């Protein structure tokens, strides 16, 4: 499996560390309450098919990527830098 890093080009999966669903990007406010934090940290849509998740290019550019891929076929549609996302306040 190769992931197309926007900075480094297509790289072997072994260069990356997987974190999890891109739900992790939508961090609730500290006082959002138990349910919102439970949802953020633990509960997942966990789709069988297309998904977006977070990969760290540890052995490359050391950037976090949001990867668009398929959990059934392992096909990868694309990847974007988490740092470069539009409308991301953080």
């Amino acid at each position, binding site marked *: *499996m190769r992931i197309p890093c926007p900075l480094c080009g297509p790289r072997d*999966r*072994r260069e990356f560390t*997987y*974190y*999890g*669903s891109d739900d992790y990007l939508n961090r609730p406010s500290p006082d959002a309450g*138990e*349910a919102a*934090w*439970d*949802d953020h*940290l*633990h*509960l*997942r*849509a*966990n*789709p*069988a*098919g297309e*998904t977006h*998740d977070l*990969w760290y290019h540890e052995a490359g550019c050391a950037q976090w990527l949001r990867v668009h891929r398929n*959990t*059934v*076929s*392992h096909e990868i549609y694309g990847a974007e830098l988490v740092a470069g996302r539009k409308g991301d306040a953080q």
Partner: protein
Amino acid sequence: MGRHMRYSGLKVFTEGLFGNKGWKPAWRTPAPKPEYDAIIIGGGGHGLSTAYYLAKNHGLRNIAVLEKGYLGGGNVGRNTTIVRANYFLPGNSEFYSHSLKLWENLESELNYNVMHSQRGQLILAHSDGQRDALARRGNAIVNQGDDAELWSLDQVRDFAPYLDYEQTRFPIYGGLMQWRAGTARHDAVAWGYARGADRFGVDLIQNCEVTGIDIQNGRVTGVQTTRGPIKAKKVGMVVAGRSSQVAAMAGMRLPIESHVLQAFVTEGLKPVIDSVISFGMGHFYISQSDKGGLVFGGDLDFYASYAARGNLPMLEHVMEAAMTLMPMIGRAKILRGWGGIMDMTPDGSPIIDKTPVEGLFVDAGWNYGGFKATPASGWCMAHLMATGESHEVARRFRLDRFRTGHVIDEEGTGSQHNLH
């Protein structure tokens, strides 16, 4: 019960004399009825054992098991068949202890040969710290009422002389042996429970995929299926590997991420590995099947996946671990590799609980541990569905324990789905 055939050595003998013409199908193939008292979604090991114990222990008779494919076609047919009860934490400890006791009586209970073989499991230690941890774990196992022996290096060497004791990177310091652990014939466990449930009148309905869960005023009223709607006031979701998809039909998000776990088998060899052996410095465990194949597995591929096959990096890791532990394995040829889809929870422990929907129950999140849990999972899920109360040994397997902080993190690796 007159139409049911009891299996025995005498029966095998007499059937052999008369051309084996007297064998009958082990279960019926009924059409779904419009309504049942209880529906189990999922005809795998846990779903079938749930149906069996609902009938056997709680007297329910009007039960259906709905399976989208064929019985036992999921993870119960894709595991490495290991049965053990060597957990440490309260919650897991009493549950797996209960499960092992059920295993020990399973064949006479079901009148079915599940080839349960208590050949022992040896976990290896490769440092002083690891040996201390095994001593602590062993004491916990003895305290829960099960068996464990802390072995010295010499004892390990006598038992398994083929391990690589000379290599400097991961020297072997000793091990923890549980003699009552072992293996079982995985498909036979599903078939045995299926036949047992059928004898109590449970309808096992295959090629019947659930496409919707009907809920009115917060209560479950039935399911929609590819073979029409079926009503029921109690529905159990027992579909590890697809838990998130089925729960989504009830509007729920579960604390589960699906990962693929690979396993491999070599060509058949003469008897060489007596027990289950677990490497302590990499995720690698091995046993020898009764056909002679060396069956072994490794760790997750570490990223969410529903592909029932793995990728090469983890295959490479497993082969490296195998060669590190027992160099002789390099002479064997790998026949097959496959993957199973694991329901990974944020603490590595399972869920047997009610849901926010009245009458809808969930049995999920079995991580790598589902096969050995098959009897107790069904036992406890049946208890929950019949009585509305958690069984004593499964009361910590709560759906909301991540929110409340009552996690059961056996490996102590933290609250992330792929770290367990």
